[in-house]
């Protein structure tokens, strides 16, 4: 028998070679026949990367090949193989001259040499890369003949089939088609009851019934849940932040935004624009800011002692990679270190795209529900009303305010910033960094306890006071100024040491080494512009028997570790700048000489966690000194001071508001109203949170440079934002910013954007894309199997002409067009001939058949068993996992497996920890989110078999299906077998299948009766026995559980047929 196989197999190979030889009689086409050879064998040295180019010869352009290299001899003389150096060099027997050089170990095959020769012979015509020219709508072929055409998709498919002398398959049986379209659109199987209804309806109304079904499924919220995963893969979504600690983070609000957008069928161009630059849209809504979470889904390294910038750049590279794969279908990544070897993307162009994204904060924002937003609005209205009341009560308020302003202008105290020579987090777990404005910002690891110092030199001789400002910053949680989970801080103590520079010696930039000579200067009278009322430390940080308190500024200088200054006035009033002014005791510091100062900040108000979760320290601060006789002369916070300093007509509304508020607080007769206003804030809601993008303020603008070899320590020349020359241009006249870039990505003129989206939808439905390399449409991509169909769909998608109603960029319309095609509706059974000819179904002479994706596999089991819990959105739930999984965690997190029914939610909502991929999802190839994934692998392993046989939720599903079968499956075992089989596979079993099921059932029943198998444990585990239908007994429940477990593991259950 074995030898027969080989014979058949060899004849297949023979046919293949023959087919190839047939094609050989035509002139080779550059894109199809030549470019793959040159790209694999020549372009690495003779491509577009001028740094890697050898002998100044490039073969990727016709111009380059005709001109030749250093030697001056033309590599190609069209039509003249004898004169073409290229042909000479690939055919020579002289090893020194042979190309590719033997040591490159990429020799050409004789066939390839032959193809190249014929191409030169035929004139060596080059073609531009198909994917770099925008698609135009091709004419629909007049293929078909007698075949039934669902829509134009079929004409393209049939045309190819006719060329290949293949015939399409007949339509799949209605129940198979029903299950297929259910799994494809909503990711869940139909119920046996609905299968009956549909089969009847389909027999009666045919295509109309099917079309109505498709529309109904697309309208279902389940559609959005199924397809959200399609985007979440590309967006590398996970519920933790990756690297060593891999801590939980709140990003599900972004995930819910995706579900909502898909449910509403947000046009794909808008879908992209909002995710890349929603924050920059005019009057951006909360949702549009949430959308920008897309680029923030990447990993963040908060390992102890890291340099933040190194991993910020890693994160940026990851964002570029994500956009490249998910939107553009280009391997941008390659140009991170050097000019792309294969695609016309230069090193510089990579960083010009990078520049569009680089000038952003790593923002964290609150996300409020509709009700919460209404509350906030009510508070703001209340505030406005109260202030209006003030204005009404005091008719000449404007002149009063002006007087106050004039008075305040006199009360100014001059402060000199301490320009830190050095600063250090003692022990080095964090690395604070001085900013241009002399403030010190700490990002990276978040210690929970410790000290930070900064040193400076001043030439002032009589220092009277010190000021510390706690400052907000866009990179801090919710803007800071703190680094705690809610952006607040508690500063336990502050003290100053000083010495005349002459006593320290010259080596002032080794402050850590300076131990002698420094004297501590006593501080008195600490006054803050904002201080929290005295209160115990927040519960989040509380240890057992915790006496620590937070509150007034005086806590800063009381020398006690237990007390700390806090400027947190509660929700809605915590993310502001604030300051504390302290006096130098006695007569200040006097020195004839310049003074060396070392200021210490002490943090003792964090929690106990060593992994940064319970940090409570100040993210950004700035120090200043004064020589004013009374440092407290200026009662104004810096922000108000800055507002007053601004010319009246140039003040922003915020600044006007700020001045007004400061003034009203200073007027004693408004005490009551001021208190009423303070009262309003108490209702302020907390909200959820999201990581988002936010444009950096002008003073924090970040320039972009090229990085040599992608090395963060090697920034080179500065670049301006821009797009690669080989793609379409930016819209003329539009400002060069991230929003314009986003619109550029989603432009119908883009050669790849629509094609990439269409291709990935096709891939989801048919298992392989029309372009197999969904992530790469570049020069080295696989050629499309149906190029015209791809373009027809891409143009139809962006134009919105794939359905009856014109709806540009509609994903629903696109999916609808695909599933309505006859191509999609074909039977997926492969004949022997077809299997030989087209094992992977690239030609589409049959319907799609492949194992469902991980999430769908689990959701099938949940639906079939009736366990599925349909709650939409919200926090992810923790699935049960074996205890032993935690042993491999570097950091343990609080993993509380969700009880029923929460644990039976759709797989989309499972909590995903990157470093601990869910064993079930992992076995069925769900990506863990370390990087953008636009094409899953599909494996078939014993580990997956063990998971779907034995994982607790699958076992519970078997038990659930058994119970359901007894309840709903009819009175006889035959009926029940049919019911359960249909619930799993969507079709009625054949007699041989029923017989196999019953045989198992009977043999097990005997075994249970004999006491070998405990009925109760099998059917419910440790749970209580459910109520059984009349006439049924626990033994039957156990028997059907065993059968159900088999049925849930059937190839046809796990597979979309």
């Amino acid at each position, binding site marked *: 028998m074995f030898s*027969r196989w*080989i014979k058949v*197999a060899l004849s297949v190979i023979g046919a*293949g*070679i023959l087919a*190839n030889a047939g094609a050989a009689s035509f002139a080779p086409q550059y894109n199809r026949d030549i470019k*793959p050879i040159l790209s694999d064998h020549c372009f690495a040295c003779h491509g577009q990367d001028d740094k890697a180019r050898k002998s100044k010869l490039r073969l990727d352009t016709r111009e380059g090949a005709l001109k030749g290299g250093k030697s001056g001899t033309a590599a190609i003389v069209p039509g003249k193989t004898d004169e073409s150096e290229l042909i000479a060099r690939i055919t020579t027997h002289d090893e020194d001259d042979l190309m590719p050089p033997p040591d490159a170990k990429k020799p050409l095959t004789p066939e390839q040499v032959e193809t190249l020769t014929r191409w030169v012979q035929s004139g060596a015509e080059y073609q531009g890369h198909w994917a770099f020219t925008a698609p135009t709508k091709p004419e629909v072929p007049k293929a078909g003949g007698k075949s039934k055409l669902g829509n134009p998709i079929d004409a393209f498919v049939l045309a190819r089939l006719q060329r290949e002398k293949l015939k399409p398959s007949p339509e799949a049986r209605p129940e198979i088609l029903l299950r297929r379209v259910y799994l494809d659109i909503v990711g869940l199987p139909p119920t046996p009851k609905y299968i009956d209804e549909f089969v009847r309806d389909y027999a009666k109304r045919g295509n109309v019934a099917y079309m109505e079904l498709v529309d109904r499924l697309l309208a279902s919220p389940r559609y959005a849940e199924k397809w959200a995963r399609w985007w979440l893969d590309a967006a590398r979504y996970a519920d933790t932040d*990756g*690297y*060593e600690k891999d801590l939980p983070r709140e990003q599900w609000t972004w995930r819910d935004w995706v579900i909502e957008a898909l449910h509403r069928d947000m046009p794909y161009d808008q879908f992209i624009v909002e995710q890349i630059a929603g924050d920059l849209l005019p009057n951006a809504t909360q949702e549009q800011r949430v959308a920008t979470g897309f680029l923030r889904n990447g*990993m963040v390294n908060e*390992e*102890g*002692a890291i*340099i933040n910038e190194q991993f910020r750049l890693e994160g940026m590279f990851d964002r570029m990679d994500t956009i490249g794969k998910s939107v553009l279908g280009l*391997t941008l990544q390659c140009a991170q270190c050097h000019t792309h*070897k*294969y695609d016309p993307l230069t090193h510089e162009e990579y960083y010009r795209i990078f520049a569009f994204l680089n000038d952003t904060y790593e923002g964290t924002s609150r996300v409020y529900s509709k009700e919460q937003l209404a509350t906030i609005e009510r508070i703001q209205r209340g505030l406005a009303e109260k202030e209006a009341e003030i204005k009404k009560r005091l008719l000449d308020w404007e002149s009063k305010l002006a007087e106050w302003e004039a008075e305040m202008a006199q009360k100014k105290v001059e402060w000199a910033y301490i320009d830190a020579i050095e600063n*250090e987090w003692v022990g*080095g777990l964090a690395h604070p960094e001085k900013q241009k404005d002399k403030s010190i910002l700490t990002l990276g690891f978040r210690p929970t306890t410790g000290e930070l110092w900064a040193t400076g030199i001043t030439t002032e001789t009589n220092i009277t006071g010190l000021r510390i400002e706690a400052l907000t910053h866009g990179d801090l949680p919710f803007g800071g100024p703190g680094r705690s989970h809610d952006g607040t801080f508690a500063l336990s103590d502050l003290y100053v040491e000083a010495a005349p520079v002459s006593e320290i010696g010259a080596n002032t930039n080794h402050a850590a080494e300076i131990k002698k000579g420094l004297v501590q200067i006593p501080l008195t009278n600490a006054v803050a512009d904002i201080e929290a009322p005295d209160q115990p430390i927040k519960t989040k940080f509380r240890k057992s028997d915790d006496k620590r308190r937070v509150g007034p500024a005086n806590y800063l200088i009381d020398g006690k570790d237990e007390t700390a200054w806090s400027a947190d006035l509660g929700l809605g009033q915590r993310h502001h700048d604030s300051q504390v002014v302290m006096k130098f005791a006695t007569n200040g510091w006097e020195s004839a000489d310049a003074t060396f100062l070392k200021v210490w900040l002490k943090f003792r108000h964090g929690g106990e966690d060593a992994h940064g979760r319970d940090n409570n320290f100040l993210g950004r601060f700035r120090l200043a000194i004064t020589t004013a006789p009374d440092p407290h002369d200026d009662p104004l916070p810096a922000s108000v001071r800055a507002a007053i300093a601004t010319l009246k007509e140039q003040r922003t509304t915020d600044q006007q508001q700020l001045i007004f508020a400061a003034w009203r607080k200073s007027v004693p007769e408004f005490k009551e109203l001021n208190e009423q206003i303070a009262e309003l804030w108490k209702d302020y809601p907390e909200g959820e949170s999201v990581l988002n993008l936010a444009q950096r303020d002008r003073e924090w603008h970040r320039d972009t440079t090229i990085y040599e070899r992608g090395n963060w320590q090697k920034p080179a020349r500065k670049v301006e934002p821009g797009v690669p020359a080989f793609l379409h241009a930016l819209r003329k006249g539009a400002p060069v910013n991230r929003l314009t870039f986003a619109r550029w990505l989603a432009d119908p003129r883009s050669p790849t954007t629509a094609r990439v989206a269409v291709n990935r939808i096709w891939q989801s439905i048919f298992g392989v894309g029309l372009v197999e390399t969904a992530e790469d449409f*570049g020069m080295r991509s*696989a050629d499309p199997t149906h190029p015209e169909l791809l373009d027809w769909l891409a143009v139809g998608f962006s134009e919105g002409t794939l359905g009856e109603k014109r709806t540009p960029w509609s994903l629903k319309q696109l999916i609808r067009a695909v599933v309505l095609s006859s191509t999609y509706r074909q039977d997926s*059974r*492969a004949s*022997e001939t077809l*299997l030989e000819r087209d094992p992977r179904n690239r030609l589409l002479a049959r319907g799609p*058949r492949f194992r469902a994706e991980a999430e769908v596999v689990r959701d099938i089991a949940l639906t079939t068993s009736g366990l599925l819990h349909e709650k939409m959105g919200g926090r992810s739930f923790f699935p049960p996992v*074996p205890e*032993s*999984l*935690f*042993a491999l*965690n*570097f950091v343990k997190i609080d993993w509380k497996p969700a009880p029923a029914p929460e644990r039976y939610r759709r797989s989309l909502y499972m909590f995903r920890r990157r470093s*601990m991929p869910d*064993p079930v999802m*992992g076995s069925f*190839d769900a990506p*863990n989110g*370390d*990087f953008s994934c636009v094409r899953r*692998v599909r494996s078939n392993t*014993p*580990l997956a*078999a*063990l998971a779907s*046989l*034995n994982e607790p939720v699958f076992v519970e599903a078997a038990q659930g299906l058994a119970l359901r079968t007894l309840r709903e499956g009819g009175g006889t075992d035959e009926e029940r077998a049919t019911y359960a089989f249909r619930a799993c596979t969507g079709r009625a079993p054949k007699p041989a299948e029923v017989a*196999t099921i019953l045989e*198992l059932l009977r043999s*097990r029943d005997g075994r249970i009766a004999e006491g070998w*198998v405990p*009925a*109760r444990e099998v059917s419910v585990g*440790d749970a209580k026995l459910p109520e059984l239908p009349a006439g049924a007994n626990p033994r039957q429940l*156990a028997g059907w559980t065993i059968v159900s477990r*088999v049925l849930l593991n*059937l*190839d046809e259950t*796990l597979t979309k047929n």
Partner: protein
Amino acid sequence: MEPITISRTELRQLVSRRWFLRDCGVSLGAMALLSVLGGRAAAALAGSAPANPLGPRQPHFKPKAKRVIYMFQAGAPSHLDLFDPKPELGKRSGKLPPPELLKDYRAAFINPNSALLGPKFKFAKHGQAGTEIAELLPKISEILDDVCLIRSMHTDAVNHAPAQIMMNTGSQQFGRPSLGAWTLYGLGTESENLPGYVVLSSANGTSGGASNWGCGFLPTIYAGVPFRSSGDPVLYLSNPKGFDDDTQRASLDALKKLNQLALADYHDPETLARIQNYEMAYRMQSSAPELMDFSKEPKHILEMYGVDPAKPNFARNCLLARRLIERGVRFVQLFHEAWDQHGDLKGGLTRNCKETDQASAALVKDLKQRGLLEDTLVIWGGEFGRTPMAQGTDDGRDHHNRSYSIWMTGAGIKRGIVYGETDELGFNVVRDPIHVHDLNATILHLLGFDHTKLTYRFQGRDFRLTDVHGEVVKGILA
């Protein structure tokens, strides 16, 4: 080598099909399964079935090593206190390092301009070559004649997670296949009942996490499979409560029968593979517990390793490693995350050596006495070294990427030598540097691969373990 799963053109597919029939054969089990179909259907199916991606394969040239045991010491052991004696560092303890050493240097935590710290333990000469290692490693001292001690490793990363995945995947960026995954991709496995790449872990979880043994963009089947030290050794290995073996067999027989009917209907090669995988899962259900059952190991072997069968720890994992490779597993990797001695250097090293020294040496001795050391490659080491400068006052060292030590033995390795040298402070490598890429190139070489040719096309690029770097280190080859 020919990509196994992704093929660009139909022609290449046909070639790989021929390759499959010629080089991989079709397992006898598959033949039996196919006999339910007609001859022509069976032939068509066999022809289009994906080549068994785990079937044993020949590498580029005759390999020295058929399998690998990698004892990864995560957290980064101090080379200065264990493997690389530096009397001069002792003499200059408490003084600042010479400024010229610190140019462009970055440690993780400390200001590089911190005082030097002398070695914490005594070194003595061992073996025929008189190799000096620390007193904390009495058992490893006994095997030095079989070991190649490398004192000239260096790497690019200074933080744990990136450095660990650098060692294991050749990149600081997540998402690349691990050395074990590449090995499996290149060689397949000889075990039909156990995964080809097994991961064992003791002490803490690693910083690099699952990426240390991940398959990156390679198909999932090449990922390392962690064997658990509690509960099921392989996740979900046990049948649900109440299911006895007879029921499991009867269930799988019914499943097979039903799936064969689907196979006859759809002719889908994936169905065939699925039938085989459920059978392998069943075999694993008995082979894994057999593997974990130490009752047949003689007492003197248990004692040699220091194994208490009830205690999951590094010693037990060493013995398990031997048992795994005896059963045909290709790549076994032990992770022992415990070596990050920023403080408590003396105490921490003492404890860690107690936990690892005896069993590491026992594994080498045991492999040798069984004749397995001839074709098994053994590697012991971490992701970077520790600073010659103190962290804190005088009982800790920071991360140091400029130099560190590892040791190797077994297949194809020159035994009883010391390779490479650091300067008098153990700061920089001064002779025969080995970068991580060189090490990985050498490991692949021993497995029979030209590291520049073991590639996988992903996103239009032929990726390899060594990126665009790596030189085989001839000096450590026998």
